[in-house]
């Protein structure tokens, strides 16, 4: 299978029932298109890990893809509660494992670095440590206070959306870069979606911008607008209105089901989704350019 492949084939080949999946992106570049394709393909029993489950996991949980949630902040960012994840969890229908943000990202840092765990200084917030037996302690061999540890997270699959990549998966990303690099190195398989597939020469013109190298990427998919209602810095804006609308939709199981039917099951792919959003929303999410000052690498 060539690396550059349609998203549906990448999801079909690389996401298996029962997998631990990490859809990357701290509020930015959230891979909604891949999440929707996972829903369409009816994947089941997934362990969904993400610092902030955000709407993408709320939707996947609503669609019945998830067995377990691993998270550090379960809210609808800027809006309030993440209703479906929360109610499933309160009802005992969804397993969960919880860390602080730093705990979650330290797990990925350990996974990326090939370490079994990462140490963190104590925070004295010991209730979570008691609640989660995966949070442990080690002695400082240099005589200081004990440290907290969290185990490496090495997801079966990471799904990462980027602004631009070449066909081998060498990827430039900018703006908020949350945990994309870390999860790409931590995961066993990496599905990359990109706003643009660019010539290798574009990537090579600025190697310091390449946070994810092709050597860790399993599949590359060209999926413009993959992050709506999240955003891609420089490409389109965050659709805050949809984040507010989801708060209303997710209050009702019927409305949620209807939304999934209309916007996920009823559509073939992200291009259809984007067309269906329509010109008014396209216009509202448009962004005027603000280019970076170039740097000179020099011809050596």
């Amino acid at each position, binding site marked *: 299978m060539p690396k550059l492949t349609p998203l549906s084939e990448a999801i079909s080949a690389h996401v298996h029932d029962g997998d631990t999946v990490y859809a990357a992106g701290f509020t930015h570049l959230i891979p909604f298109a891949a999440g929707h394709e996972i829903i369409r393909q009816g994947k089941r029993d997934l362990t969904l890990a993400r610092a902030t489950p955000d709407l993408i996991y709320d939707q996947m949980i609503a669609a019945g893809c998830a067995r377990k949630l691993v998270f550090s902040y379960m809210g609808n960012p800027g809006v309030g509660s993440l209703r479906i994840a929360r109610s499933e969890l309160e009802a005992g229908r969804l397993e969960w494992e919880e860390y602080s943000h730093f705990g979650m990202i330290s797990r990925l840092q350990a996974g990326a670095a090939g370490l079994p765990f990462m140490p963190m200084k104590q925070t004295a917030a010991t209730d979570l440590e008691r609640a989660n037996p995966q949070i442990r302690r080690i002695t400082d061999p240099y005589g200081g206070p004990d440290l907290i540890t969290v185990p490496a997270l090495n997801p079966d699959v990471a799904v990462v959306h980027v602004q631009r990549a070449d066909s081998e998966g060498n990827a430039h990303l900018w703006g908020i870069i*949350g945990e994309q690099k870390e999860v790409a190195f931590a995961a066993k398989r990496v599905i990359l979606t990109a706003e643009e597939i660019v010539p290798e020469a574009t990537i090579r013109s600025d190697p310091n911008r390449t946070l994810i190298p092709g050597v860790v990427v399993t599949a590359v998919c060209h999926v413009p607008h993959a992050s709506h209602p999240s955003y891609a810095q420089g490409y389109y804006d965050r659709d805050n209105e949809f984040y507010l609308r989801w708060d209303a939709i997710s209050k009702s199981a019927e409305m949620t089901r209807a939304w999934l039917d209309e916007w996920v099951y009823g559509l073939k792919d992200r291009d259809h989704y984007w067309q269906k959003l329509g010109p008014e929303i396209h216009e509202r999410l448009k962004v005027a350019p603000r280019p970076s000052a170039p740097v000179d690498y020099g011809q050596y």
Partner: protein
Amino acid sequence: MDATFTYSSAELMIINAARLLCDGDVVFVGVGQPNLACNLAKRTHAPNLVMIYEAGVIGAEPARLPLSIGDPTLVSGSLSVVSMYDIFALYLQRGNVDVGFMGGAQIDRYGNLNATIIGGDYTQPKVRLPGSGGSQEIAAWANRCYIMTPHQKRRFPEKVDFLTSAGFLDGEGGRQRAGLRGSGPVTVLTDIGLLEPDERGELVLTALHPGKTVGMARENTGWDLKVASQLRTTEPVTEKELRILRQELDPTGIYLGSE
């Protein structure tokens, strides 16, 4: 603008929060009210405030009111953007953050916060809250913390249902014994006044906003709230502060009207 200076509880808290910031402070900001407080401080007495967002943005200068912690307006024109690991490790854990802003569903007598569960036990909670996010580390490692919250009895219990982030723990010397950094929640800012820790780490009433009373504070607190011997009154809200807030920072009133 109305010369009688009517203002909302939110405006009152934001303006008083802004005044707590010093020029040059490196502040770990949340969106919403803390963001408004920081931007107000920056436009008044603290032009060199450095705003850090947990999404990894340093020195943001948002051109519009950010609506989420990861709003792209925080990124464009900022000084630096780093990974989430770096923002927590190199900034917070390393001790490069002066001020953290905190919130939570419950704040107890010793300034401890709960953002995890209410009622029941952890595995079968009555109400499941969002969880720590960054607050566990901000509370532990910022040099000082400010908590902004409406003053309501249910928000101020004697003891939190779940210890999401550390205030003064069980009181005097608690933070030191636990090896934490910084001086903890030095001010809790409500719509009634200011609570500050006494030498034992217990939050006591140290200031009232103009027109508020000790009784109002005590009625809305879940423990027997002590009153400082030198009870202050906060400076009245000024026309300038309100004007900047309303006209420049939140012209559509997204955060100013609400609690």
